[in-house]
């Protein structure tokens, strides 16, 4: 090993250690992650629905009261509708107000769906509210909200 090689390596190692130190410090100082808030969900809804008023009812939002594992939380949505060509559920938007991103899923239904219902599994970072908004073919909006208590957060895995 020549002197020259040694001289060039030493500063780079020091630099690397500094970077690691800085990253560790940043990790300690910064909150673990930025989470969405109710305000963000409200913003997102305003963007999508333009602040239109929402009715209650029509949506059956099936969620566990307590989720032991936030990584896999089952969600089942069922919107009451005849699902005919003139009267059907166009879309359903699902939001979670305590996740890093407020959106969870958006469904587009058609009269051929027969039933405006769907189930999937989602991640919840912490105890929070899950909100579903259904848009009918005539433009009417309905919303439903349920709280899920999360024991182990499903935050990014």
């Amino acid at each position, binding site marked *: 090993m020549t002197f020259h090689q040694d001289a060039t390596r030493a500063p780079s190692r020091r630099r690397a250690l500094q970077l690691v130190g800085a990253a560790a410090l940043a990790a300690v100082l910064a909150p673990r992650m930025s989470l969405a808030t109710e305000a963000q969900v409200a913003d997102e809804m305003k963007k999508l629905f333009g602040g239109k008023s929402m009715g209650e009812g029509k949506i059956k939002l099936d969620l566990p009261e307590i989720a032991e594992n936030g990584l896999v939380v089952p969600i089942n949505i069922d919107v009451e509708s005849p699902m005919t060509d003139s009267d059907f559920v166009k879309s359903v938007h699902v939001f979670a107000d305590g996740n890093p991103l407020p*959106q969870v899923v958006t469904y587009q239904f058609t009269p051929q769906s027969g039933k405006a219902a769907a*189930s999937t*599994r989602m991640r919840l970072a912490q105890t929070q509210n899950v909100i579903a908004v259904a848009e009918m073919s005539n433009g009417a909006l309905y919303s439903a909200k349920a709280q899920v208590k999360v024991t182990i957060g499903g935050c990014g895995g």
Partner: protein
Amino acid sequence: MAIKSTPRVRVPAQAKAGEIIEIKTLISHDMESGQRKDSSGKTVPRDIIHTFQAAFNGKPFFTAEWFPSISANPYQSFFYKAKESGELTFTWTDDHGAEQKATAKLTVA
């Protein structure tokens, strides 16, 4: 590029005309949220399946837009009102534009 995993789809083989059938689908995918950090503290880039679509004889009737909040190995169940015999096509599309398709025959008695 393609999504490597083979999706699993459950469709009733037979249905009566006008019957509303339930379709269940499952595909293996990490659904990397873009929020997670690896052991060196670097953020793992987002890589998810963002769209799932179901079509009957080429005509889409159900679409799900998934966000990073959807769990790994995404499961999706939904419904279809059977009218005639035909073929159901299911398509998953990920962030790289890669697709995975599955088909199922539906016989209406």
